């Protein structure tokens, strides 16, 4: 609970505070090799700490949606089905990058359908398309996209068969052929043939050995900052950056003469980060250059609203005509509130799902023990109702008090929630 915002004096002590704050991270003007060593490139986020992964594709039948294979030659599936919960591998195949931009992303949709690495789990190993009854149909969808356009179709007509035909239309010959081959093959084929949309051509920059370079230690540990990679087969992949990785990037850039003089290739070489491609560096460098020379808070939003000076004053009236500082303070306060509430909500949602998952397991265990040969477990409506009921029973532990607090202590007096009927 915040009462009043206490203003802190920005005087001598203030500026000292500032200095201390900024000293915690590496600063471009003072290149510090040791901080680069701390750059953790969590390319692979795996619960079982699978450190020995390489960026090679390994066609393994219909489950070949992953760039990673463990160096010991283990099946891709080994990485996916981690012990606790299905952590998605960071590298997963998605569509071409350009499709991300458009809202009706045919290839993205099609790829997403087939992309089981996002849904990599121990239970549904073959991906969501692996439902027994739908499996056959699923393979047909793999050809080309049409999902984006399908959204408009949904509103216009209800003829689903016709709509499904659109999905099957061979709009993108490159993708469709390869996906088909991939899905239908049951034994590994040679990489070079027609798998190019899916596999990463082992790039010269990618270090094949596991030993990290001396300048940058690649720490592959399951931390909150992760990197995820998706590859459309052309070597273009999506990266998830971290502050540490970015720091390594900045140092590399500075050592090469600054953002204007440094080249993507040079930076890539300098960084020596396993799995980082020149495309990653190139796009990141571009962003970096833009940010440095146009340091506006909202790179995206500010350019959209070009108000005249008069309108500026008017818009500030929204905050009751208060001064700039007060308006800023208010804005900050509201933002803080939203963030706090979001974190609370997220934690609640996580707990609800956790309990649901646990109960589902227990329920299934119970059922499999009780009913041998009967069809009671497949009675779906009652199953989801049961799930709800069991969750509500255990949800007594989630009390209303938790909603109002940042932390979530287990309340000693659980209150009953309204149960679902």
């Amino acid at each position, binding site marked *: 609970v915040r009462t009043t915002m206490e203003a802190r004096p920005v005087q001598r002590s203030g500026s000292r505070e500032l200095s201390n704050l900024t000293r915690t991270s590496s600063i471009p003007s003072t290149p510090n090799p040791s901080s680069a060593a701390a750059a953790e490139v969590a390319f692979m986020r795996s619960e079982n700490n699978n450190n020995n992964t390489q960026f090679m594709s390994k066609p393994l039948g219909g489950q070949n949606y992953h760039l990673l294979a463990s160096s010991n030659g283990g099946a891709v599936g080994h990485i996916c089905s981690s012990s606790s919960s299905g952590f998605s591998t960071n590298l997963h195949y998605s*569509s071409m990058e350009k499709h991300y931009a458009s809202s009706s992303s045919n290839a993205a949709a099609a790829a997403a359908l087939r992309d089981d690495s*996002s849904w990599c789990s121990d239970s549904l190993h073959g991906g969501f398309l692996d439902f027994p009854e739908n499996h056959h149909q699923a393979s047909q969808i793999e050809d080309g996209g049409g999902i984006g356009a399908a959204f408009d179709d949904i509103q216009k007509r209800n003829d689903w068969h016709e709509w499904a035909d659109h999905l099957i239309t061979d709009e993108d010959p490159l993708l469709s052929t390869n996906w088909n081959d991939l899905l239908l093959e049951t034994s590994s084929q040679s990489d070079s043939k027609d798998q190019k949309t899916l596999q990463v051509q082992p790039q010269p920059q990618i270090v094949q050995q596991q030993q990290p370079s001396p300048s940058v230690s690649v720490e592959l540990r399951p931390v*909150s900052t992760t990197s995820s990679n998706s590859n459309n087969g052309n070597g273009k992949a999506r990266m*998830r950056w971290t502050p540490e990785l970015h720091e390594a990037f900045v140092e590399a850039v500075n050592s090469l003469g600054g953002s204007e003089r440094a080249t993507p290739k040079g930076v890539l070489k300098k960084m020596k980060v396993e799995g980082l491609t020149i495309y990653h560096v190139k796009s990141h460098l571009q962003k970096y250059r833009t940010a440095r020379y146009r340091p506006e808070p909202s790179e995206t939003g500010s350019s959209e609203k070009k108000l005249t000076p008069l309108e500026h004053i008017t818009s500030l009236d929204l905050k009751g005509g208060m001064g700039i500082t007060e308006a800023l303070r208010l804005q900050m306060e*509201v933002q803080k509130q939203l963030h706090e509430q979001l974190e609370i909500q997220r934690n609640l949602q*996580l707990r*609800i799902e956790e309990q649901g998952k646990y109960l589902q397991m227990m329920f299934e265990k119970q059922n499999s023990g009780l009913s041998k040969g009967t069809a009671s477990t497949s009675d779906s409506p009652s199953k989801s109702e049961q799930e709800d009921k069991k969750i509500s029973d255990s949800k007594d532990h989630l009390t*209303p008090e938790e909603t109002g607090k940042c932390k979530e202590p287990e309340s000693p007096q659980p209150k009953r929630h309204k149960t679902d009927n």
Partner: protein
Amino acid sequence: MKFGKRIKEQIQESLPEWRDKFLRYKELKNLISSPDPAEFIFIGLLNSEIEKFNAFFVEQEEDFIIHHKVLQYRIQRLVEKYGDNDDETFREEIGEIRKDIVNFHGEMVLLVSYSNINYTGLAKILKKYDRRSGGALRSPFVQKVLHQPFFKTDLVSRLVREWETTIDAVFPASNAEAERGYERSAAVSSAAAGEGIFRNTVAALVTMREMRRGSSTYSALSLPPVNLYDLDLVLQPIHIPSPILS
């Protein structure tokens, strides 16, 4: 029905580039209401939506990481330049940075909000689907969603909290001093950006409160109401225009 309206309004209030990146809740609902919604089609659509979220989220996050460094650097340079002097130009630049920090903080919070509202929409639409089809698709599917990049907002939240700490060091001693016009000129230029973010933030808070007020299908899987007492106090001095509060 309520969520559909809420997310639509949230989208309207959001930054323009974000608007087509949200969950297409209405379309998915229509799909479910149709005579014979095939499961694989439904799943396919969900997967493609999730890909959209992931791509957008990760890209925004990358921008934030870069900007995070840039801001830190600016502050440090400012401190180095002025040392312990407390003169006019220093205050002016501090004012400018302060505004930038607040807006940056705001944008990051909005990304977390984006993540959450899409997750919530997914969970809801899956619940509807199960009710319609009698299946049990929701639970396993949601488990997968929890591991998606767009849902993992830890890094952004961490940066948000870092700046909350930092800005306490950047705010001035008293209002009187601050209003002496130093900041007016500096702030006006980026007032527009702050305005959009502010409206968006308020809208998101209102959405959250409304969504959790209690639903017609309240069940064990529903979230309890939001405790926003502080917010009401905070928002009192503001005259919120009706479009946001509707």
